[in-house]
């Protein structure tokens, strides 16, 4: 029983993570953890942006200068 409830909880966590990631990506916010671990792995000499810097970077990328991706119609 313990195994199955553990299993269920994991599944639930996977599901909520998927929904939250999906909702954040819909408004242009990618996964910070994925970004940070990518930088740590590929550029160990660089410090990754903080979570807040990442948030602002993505906000600007969606609507900011020289970018047309925030636009949609149908």
């Amino acid at each position, binding site marked *: 029983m313990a195994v199955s409830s553990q299993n269920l909880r994991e599944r639930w966590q996977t599901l909520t993570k*998927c929904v*939250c*990631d*999906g*909702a*954040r*990506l*819909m*408004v*242009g*916010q*990618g*996964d910070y953890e*994925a*970004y*940070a671990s*990518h*930088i740590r792995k*590929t550029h160990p000499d660089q410090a*990754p942006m903080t*979570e*807040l810097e990442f*948030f*602002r*970077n*993505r*906000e*600007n*990328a*969606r*609507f*900011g*200068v*020289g*970018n*047309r*991706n*925030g*636009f*949609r*119609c*149908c």
Partner: protein
Amino acid sequence: MGAISKHGPWALVGALGAAALAIVATERGESVNALWIVVAAICVYVIAYRYYSLFIADKVMRLDPKRETPAVRHNDGLDYVPTNKTVLFGHHFAAIAGAGPLVGPVLAAQMGYLPGLLWILAGVVFAGAVQDFIVLFVSMRRDGRSLGELIRAELGTVPGVIALIGTFLIMIILLAVLALIVVKALAGSPWGTFTVMATIPIAILMGVYSRYIRPGKIGEVSILGFVLLMLAIVYGGSVAEHPTWGPAFTYTGTQLCWMLIGYGFVASILPVWLLLAPRDYLSTFLKIGTIVGLALGIAVVAPHLQMPAMTKFVDGTGPVWSGQLFPFLFITIACGAVSGFHSLISSGTTPKLIANEADARMIGYGGMLMESFVAVMALVSACVIDPGVYFTMNSPAALLGTSPETAAAAVTKLGFAITPDAITAAAKDVGETTIISRAGGAPTLAVGMAHIISSAIGGKAMMAFWYHFAILFEALFILTAVDAGTRACRFMVQDLVGLAVPAFKDTTSWAANIVATALCVSAWGYFLYQGVTDPLGGINTLWPLFGISNQMLAAVALTLCTVVIFKMKRERYAFVTIIPTVWLCICTLTAGWQKIFHADPRIGFLSHADRYSTALAEGKVLPPAKNVEQMSQIIFNDRIDAALAVVFVGLVVSIAVFGVIACIRAFRTDRWTALESDARAVPAE
């Protein structure tokens, strides 16, 4: 045996879909349950996805799950990130779904539900989803480049520039038509105007909260905003009834038009975090939530369609928009069947986020099927309301007059019996003083949605709430689009003018920003003002222009796809894109031609201008003009519209010619000439 177990279940789905379509198409005299339409649509989507998209993926594109995608190759954790397929599907769908699939089908309902339904289904399977999927594929194989860059690389510099100019013009027309929808929904409606205006301080509050108080907490701030929005809707009813505040929030179309122009200008030069980003959260989540809610509502309530399968207006005499079924139905329903705009999204952020080539099928083809389903639900919503109410809401004031008595008489004369009392009651149900001539799709959709959702939750007492909820939800993402679109236009103008005056390119320069923004706002503002003051309701003029431009962009994108298929030496499969390209060219060129030269002044811009200039020469003043100046203005507007249609026709023709030349050249070559990035296998972990 193997074939039966492999294809048997799909054959059953196909049979169910065929049966549902047969019921929908042949039921006469009795009203059809909307669920049959839903079942027919879903079966068509399932079969198309299982077989046609697989055929395209395997034979035409030869998707290779082992090949590196741009997200893997250029992974930077920011723009290029391998992303979970389901998460990316949500992102892509949210990016393509907007006002288009909600408005077009509502307008098309004047011909009955059947023509619109059949075009939505056939269009998405053979044109819309194919375009989205193949553009996504082409961009994915080329480091996620944009449509303009792809056309320049595969077709040449000149077609690339032509496509850029076309995109800019579409944006202008689109922004004007979207703003017009908001004006039509809010004119003379204090409740609606109050709630929509309330979104501005709410969004600013959210912006400040997520900038200084709890940065990055999107969920939290969105819930806060949502609660405030709901309060604004509830409180809006009392504001509308208040003796001072009610009139203070009651505006005419022209007043709202100027407010929107001013809003567009200010909003698009403010910092993004203050207004645009927080409202984007609200509009995105509300949009997804409402779409899900509407789907559940239709499934639970199972409403009956009141609109006939086909009305007599297929002959082109309809009051909502003019022109015969061919070509105008195929122009009116653009998004939902095939939308050129999606080619910009499919070559935007999505291709940079795909983790595995095989995912492109679900995201590109599947995402568009989902959007098409939204269009089907919009069609259902428009057809569940009484046709008398539908035509009262969507016919121009020039035909209906402004009182319930004149409107009821005019609509009854059209062949859809309705009493003045029924019109007054319908307005009262949704908490408005009048519903006459609320063209533009949004109010009709709102009445339909209120009808469906209130049958599930809240009953008649909640109908006014749901109506204003639906108006708010549409206005919210239209305002977001106006803001984001004006910004995007501004960057385009700065890029273009920057070619001549390099200083103009500097996006940190306030002078350049303000000049470029003013240029964009006055461009769409011009068409908006023209639409608001048009006695035929504006939608009549602007929606076909928008439809033509949107389908034109789709034809351009599909031409690119065809050229790429030829360059890959897979021309035996090129019919997949040639058929929709040819069809879209036929539709846009015929419609463009008719909008310019048709002898009926209700359709042709030039004959409309002629009528007014003849009258002007005789010294007469034709309504709605009240003096000679307004007469000249109408003539000038007509000529501008005609010129725009000429430009669109020219664009389609020139890109088609460039496309044919590129195809012939590729056909004569004996080897692969497409310019993909080199194929590299996914590195082993």
